[in-house]
């Protein structure tokens, strides 16, 4: 079921206000230093509608950096889980994040469903916005994860200047729009034309064209030697930023914290870029060499993700490009790989 409408921009804040009255509204806001942050909205007028394309990931709303799993009461020897059931609407996220969530759904829900993720996912409505103006770091276009999604969204808005072209896919999304049918109108032919034009112009603005497929094939061909990875990895600061920021990285660790009368079992983000990530009893570190960890990250995204989940472990959002202090990121590594492909030789990265 796919439905399309037009929403006058003047009606947006009314609609959002209504939604906020029913559930938690999360949207991007600009803070005093110009950064965009996703947070719970108190005042609708503070929502930033002129965002850059590169926004913070919404991963943390589904897999928080720190999440309590259980609380164990020492006194009555009982275990309570803390699965969040808060209804939320997340407004203003980007197509790449929606695409990433769809992949994560397969990972977290399809087999042995993770109840925490599942509950947060089921209770969240996503209103994504098509990127009219991609950032220089974006490369979703080569992966079909943006700037516009053909499917997989809840509600997708395309900014047509004075109005939004609205598409809804899920039942919940459609019912929400139907509840406020008086705000929405039927799209005219000119709306479709305008939308098409916006998409064309957006696509033309991408500065990066990166083919992960090509990188994957190169790696699989065995032409990329360890010296290449050694060059890449020598600059890694082991900060974990790439993993923390990537909407498709999910690794976590579990800790127990013993307070006076309760124990909290919580999970928190972890990263395979740390050597302790695979530490075994007795201090054995199977991945002590940094190169193994860097390779693991790229191989997971480029080789194993497609093998297992049928899509790349990257949606081209470019967040690792921004956050990596060592300038090791999906885009730049793929560019380097591409230059190998073009030169038809094995180069050993110059560092």
């Amino acid at each position: 079921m796919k439905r399309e409408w037009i929403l006058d921009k003047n009606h947006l804040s009314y609609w959002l206000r209504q939604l906020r009255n029913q559930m938690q509204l999360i949207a991007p806001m600009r803070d005093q230093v110009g950064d965009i942050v996703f947070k719970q909205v108190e005042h609708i007028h503070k929502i930033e509608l002129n965002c850059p394309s590169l926004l913070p990931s919404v991963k943390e709303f589904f897999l928080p950096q720190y999440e309590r799993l259980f609380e164990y009461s020492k006194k009555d020897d009982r275990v309570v889980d803390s699965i969040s059931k808060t209804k939320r609407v997340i407004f203003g996220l980007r197509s790449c994040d929606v695409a990433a969530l769809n992949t994560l759904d397969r990972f977290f829900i399809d087999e042995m469903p993770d109840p925490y993720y599942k509950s947060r996912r089921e209770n969240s409505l996503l209103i994504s916005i098509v990127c009219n103006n991609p950032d220089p770091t974006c490369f979703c276009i080569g992966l079909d994860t943006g700037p516009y999604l053909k499917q997989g969204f809840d509600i997708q808005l395309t900014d047509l200047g004075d109005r939004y072209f609205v598409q809804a896919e899920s039942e919940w999304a459609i019912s929400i729009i139907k509840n406020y049918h008086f705000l929405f109108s039927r799209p005219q032919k000119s709306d479709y034309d305008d939308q098409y034009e916006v998409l064309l112009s957006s696509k033309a603005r991408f500065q990066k064209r990166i083919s992960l497929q090509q990188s994957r094939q190169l790696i699989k061909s065995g032409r990329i030697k360890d010296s290449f990875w050694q060059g890449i990895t020598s600059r890694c600061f082991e900060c974990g930023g790439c993993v923390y920021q990537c909407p498709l990285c999910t690794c976590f660790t579990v800790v127990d914290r013993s307070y006076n009368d309760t124990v909290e079992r919580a999970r928190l983000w972890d990263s395979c870029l740390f050597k302790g990530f695979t530490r075994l009893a007795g201090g054995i570190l199977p991945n002590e060499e940094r190169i193994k960890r860097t390779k693991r990250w790229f191989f997971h995204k480029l080789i194993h993700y497609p093998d297992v989940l049928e899509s790349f472990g990257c949606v081209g959002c470019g967040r690792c490009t921004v956050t990596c202090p060592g300038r090791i990121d999906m885009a730049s590594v793929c560019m380097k790989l591409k230059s190998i492909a073009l030169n038809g030789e094995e180069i050993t990265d110059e560092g």
Partner: protein
Amino acid sequence: MDKILTVCPYCGCGCGLYLHVEDDRIVGVSPCINHPVNRGSLCVKGWNCYEFVHHPDRLKFPMIRKRGTLVRATWDEALDLIARRLTEIKRLYGSDSIGLLSSAKCTNEENYLMMKFARAVVGTNNIDHCARLCHSSTVGGLAAAFGSGAMTNSINEIINARVLFVIGSNTTEQHPMIAMHMLDAVDSGATLIVADPRKTQLAEFAHIHLQHRPGSDVALLMGLMNIIVTEGLVDIDFVKRRTENFDSFLDTLRTFDPAKVEAITGVKIQLLRRVARIYAMEKRSMLFYAMGITQHITGVDNVRALANLVMLTGHIGLPMSGINPLRGQNNVQGACDMGALPNVFSGYQTVTDPRARKKFQNTWRKKLNPKPGLTLMEMMDMAYVGRLKALYVMGENPLLSDPDLGHLEKAMERIDFVVVQDIFPNETMNYADVVLPAASFAEKDGTYTNTERRVQLLQRAISPPGEAKADWEIIVDLATRMGYRMHYRGTYEIMEEIALLTPSYGGILHHRLKEGFGLQWPCPTQDHPGTPYLHRKKFAKGLGTFITVDYIPPDEPPDKEYPFLLTTGRIYFHYHTGTMCRRTVVLEREEPECFVEINPEDADSLGIKNGWPVKVTSRRGSIEVKAKLTGKIPQGTVFIPFHYAEAAVNRLTNPAVDPKAKIPEYKVCAVRIEPLYKMPVVKTPKPPEVELESLRIEE
């Protein structure tokens, strides 16, 4: 969920980050994209800085020692006791029998109040903090040369520099975000020169890596300057117009001919020449140094030599051209600025200067002590002979961070009354009579000053656990109980007082800091935009002074009995004495055990294999650690990080101090290494490696 912009509590980079708060708990961290230092990145400590805040070990209640054990008390009981005892001790033994340690982890406001408390309430100048242990040589050395001891440039200038000369700083590990800027600069064509005995990660990217012998920095730098002079690369105009005392300096310089320098440092003449030329001939040359320079008995001389180098070449007073000490802790710069030092008030106004004293006296309405106080090491020496009667420690752990722990433990035992105010239990608390629970960085307001002199606002994100209170609130309460009324409605009012009394902070007020990413001092007036680089037209003290330095070999060179040079320091995943990071799973998991880095060749000759336990012994004590073989460290030298209480390397280090700055010589001392592991007796001969593996893995 709310996101609150604040400053990373770990290192001196002072990265901007958001704390994500839900139900008064921190559930995440994200970097600030526009921040001039970190630009959307964070290092591993920053990314995980939220975790220790909710750790169950946090101190939640005041405690008083009763019959040998610390028991829970109310704030009233604890503070009244402190007030009573301090007043008593002051009356019986005089103000100067009380010592106070402030903290580079606390905010500027708290450091200011602590120093006000020491000077106006207790009446002593015995106030110091751990900057003594890392950068007091900087403050001493640079102040003498230029009149101000801080980074002269800004971090975001690095990207445009042409030459980066980094000496004695493991920047990628200790100041990761500064290293990020450095590597970016290299990407855009800058030349990177690294001088470090160890092959650090940054050295891998260096165009030239000088591996001089530990402790030979003065010789190295004098050698470079000698070459600069003989090759006519001196900025004569600059030397003539802006400096003094050049001629007498020149006389000493002549004695450092390159051949002699090569002999002392082990660095080839050709390499010295190349470095001297590259550094002197490019105008946009930035010099960086850290603890590898300062933590020596010649620490001040090392810094002076560096100061001479920049004056000789005129590489100072311009953007992308200057001398940049990288300060370790998040607010070590601020703690110094605030006068948590025995000889100065805030803004480095000396206590011996009657005019400065008068100004403070008038504002504080209290007669002030004109005699400079004791440094940290001197306080401990006084305690050792029983003449320090009380010690108030705020947010420090001297029992792990100070050299020659054995001596210190005895000294601590002899102090009558010890107060410790911290967020976690630490080793020093074993000696405490009263323990006060403090609020962490996420639970209070205030400002931190990062290494580039940027005063930044810290914003309270959550409430403190239990009954813990912000350090400044505790001091205010205590001072009032001791009969000196302090009253501030918030930290912003303390900042107003600081601005009033401190010329370099004159225009720094909280509401201004909110508007952007803080202000870089000097910022004398309310409309001053802050100063990105120092000494533009003239030095803070007028003319820059060339100070003659000479090479003094390390206090304790290796010999037959103790054949290795031990140097100590921090590692990337840990920080200072580990009270915070060792309570963070990800960080602790990386390096849960102390180790000694040793060159494989040396290890081989001692019969040590990677991962084996070894005993490291110096003239003062011995510890057991794991051996870590790495080619990054040159032969004859070993390295041990100082974060681990169970293997405290400061049982080994040499308490010999620099005579001028009183900074201990952490970086060099002589040790002996013995393997603790005996090869097992086996009947059938087998290759030893396999044998070891099967013993180690033992599933």
